[in-house]
């Protein structure tokens, strides 16, 4: 860049945003090159939360690895759990019984709502609307209570086991979920009252961090970030897993691919999730919770890739088995990791305040990026 283009000072200002910064959502560090307030370049430094999950997968048995995975994307622990359990089930050639499948689906969708609520809250806080955050947490709390009642933990749930789920539904589960699901769309309307039409929100999110559909695919963006760019692709529809094919729901897509579109997509996804849950809650079949399988999990030699639509995007597991009780290689395809790569492209030429908005809109979880 020619020096004459800089406005006040010929030298660029390098600001290290993070790893301790209010809105980097964890321990992300972004090295920003600034010209005044304008971002010339952004480089992400990650790995502060690296715990070697993939290595752990090689030294723990298949069953033991599940709770470790909950710590990856700790906002959407149920999704992690579901993806992994399904992968191993596929490798073993077993299917979870329908009752377990339904419970899995309900829990995963509720978890998607919690994940999106947390995203909305933090995203709003990044843009200065602090109150939305608390409202989101209020609703999130209700879901976490359901989780707690069901499996005994709120965040890192370890809800499912390979072959089904461990826990029977508790008494009053359906009522609790139903009450929540009935109220929830109204609550989403409230968030929308605060944000969707607010002029400040519009100014802050429209035309910020635009990414075209072609670029999005090239960058491997998945999940709401991809759909915000107008690509109608959701693994729940494209490659239905669990029992998603039995339910009726829409996939919201955006037009422009800016922060506002991604925001709208996620808001609509919350409604759709509630819709799926309300369909599923009345149809939970009776039956066993665990598939018939041996206690010791020894999959055949081979490899498998299975991916699900986590709230953040495509969460894939690539497992190589050598026939023992532990995976030979347990690879996780983390959606946040791949999505974060697009930050550089999205923020170039924007202001410092937009960097925060874009980080928020990507909905990253550092536990998953660094694993």
């Amino acid at each position, binding site marked *: 860049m020619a020096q004459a283009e800089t406005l006040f000072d010929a030298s660029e200002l390098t600001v290290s945003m993070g790893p301790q910064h209010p809105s980097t959502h964890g321990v992300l560090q972004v090295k920003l090159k600034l010209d005044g307030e304008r971002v010339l370049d952004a480089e992400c430094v990650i790995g502060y939360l690296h715990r070697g999950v993939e290595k752990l997968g090689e030294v723990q048995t298949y069953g033991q690895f599940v709770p470790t995975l909950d710590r990856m994307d700790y906002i959407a622990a149920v999704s992690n759990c579901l993806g992994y359990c399904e992968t191993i089930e596929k490798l073993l050639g077993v299917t979870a019984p329908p009752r377990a499948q339904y419970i899995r689906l309900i829990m995963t969708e509720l978890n998607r709502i919690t994940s999106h609520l947390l995203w909305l809250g933090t995203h709003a806080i990044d843009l200065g609307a602090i109150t939305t955050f608390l409202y989101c947490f209020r609703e999130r709390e209700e879901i976490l209570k359901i989780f707690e009642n069901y499996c005994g933990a709120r965040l890192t749930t370890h809800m499912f086991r390979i072959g089904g789920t461990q826990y029977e539904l508790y008494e009053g589960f359906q009522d609790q979920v139903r009450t929540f699901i009935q109220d929830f769309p109204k609550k989403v309307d409230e968030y929308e009252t605060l944000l969707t039409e607010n002029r400040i929100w519009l100014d802050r999110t429209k035309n910020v961090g635009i990414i075209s559909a072609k670029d999005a695919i090239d960058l491997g963006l998945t999940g709401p970030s991809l759909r915000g760019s107008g690509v109608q692709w959701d693994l729940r529809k494209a490659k239905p897993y669990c029992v998603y094919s039995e339910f009726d729901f829409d996939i919201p897509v955006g037009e422009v691919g800016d922060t506002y579109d991604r925001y709208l997509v996620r808001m609509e996804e919350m409604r759709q999730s509630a819709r799926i849950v309300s369909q599923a809650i009345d149809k939970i079949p009776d039956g066993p919770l665990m598939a018939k399988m041996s206690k010791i999990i020894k999959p055949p030699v081979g490899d498998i*890739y299975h991916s699900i639509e986590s709230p953040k995007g495509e969460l894939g597991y690539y497992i190589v088995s050598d026939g023992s009780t532990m995976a030979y290689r347990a690879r996780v395809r983390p959606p946040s990791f791949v999505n974060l790569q697009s930050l550089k492209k999205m923020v170039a030429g924007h202001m410092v305040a937009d960097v925060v908005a874009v980080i928020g809109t990507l909905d990253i979880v550092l536990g998953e990026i660094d694993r």
Partner: protein
Amino acid sequence: MKEKFSTQFVKAYSFLGQNNIEVKKALIAEILTFVRDNTILPCNYLADETAVHWPKDEEFEIVYILYSFSKNEYVRMKTRIKEWETIESAAGVWTTADWLEREVYDMFGVRYANHPNLKRILLPEDWVGFPLRKDYNVRLQDVEWVRKHLGIDSGQKYYVGEARHEDPNYITPTD
């Protein structure tokens, strides 16, 4: 479909309903470009790129998991390289591969040729060794790194086996 690269082609098979294609590594970038741009199964999206270490053969298996939006189909491309060999980077084909390859380099030490920015991504720059190799000693490295950078003895030091609680030297590093 793969006639064009018949010399490079090893085998194609299906395992548990998932398609695998094994190819040789020499022309990998051209093959990947072809896979991306062909009309039969245009895999325009690289879902994942990773590696598996096979120390017996001193080999890495590089795995590309590809997806075709138009055909709704996953394909796995695999290629094998010797531990000391380099492989052509896919970052020119899909931008996604940039970080994914950096991670593979970080974890396995696979050297990519023509990669825009091949350096460690998750681990610190001065980390020794590549953790996801099967012959890597996690604890030794960790203890050394912690001692060097934090100036304390790592709590992992005595975490060597089943009997660690009985080990008279087992000290938790607080207090």
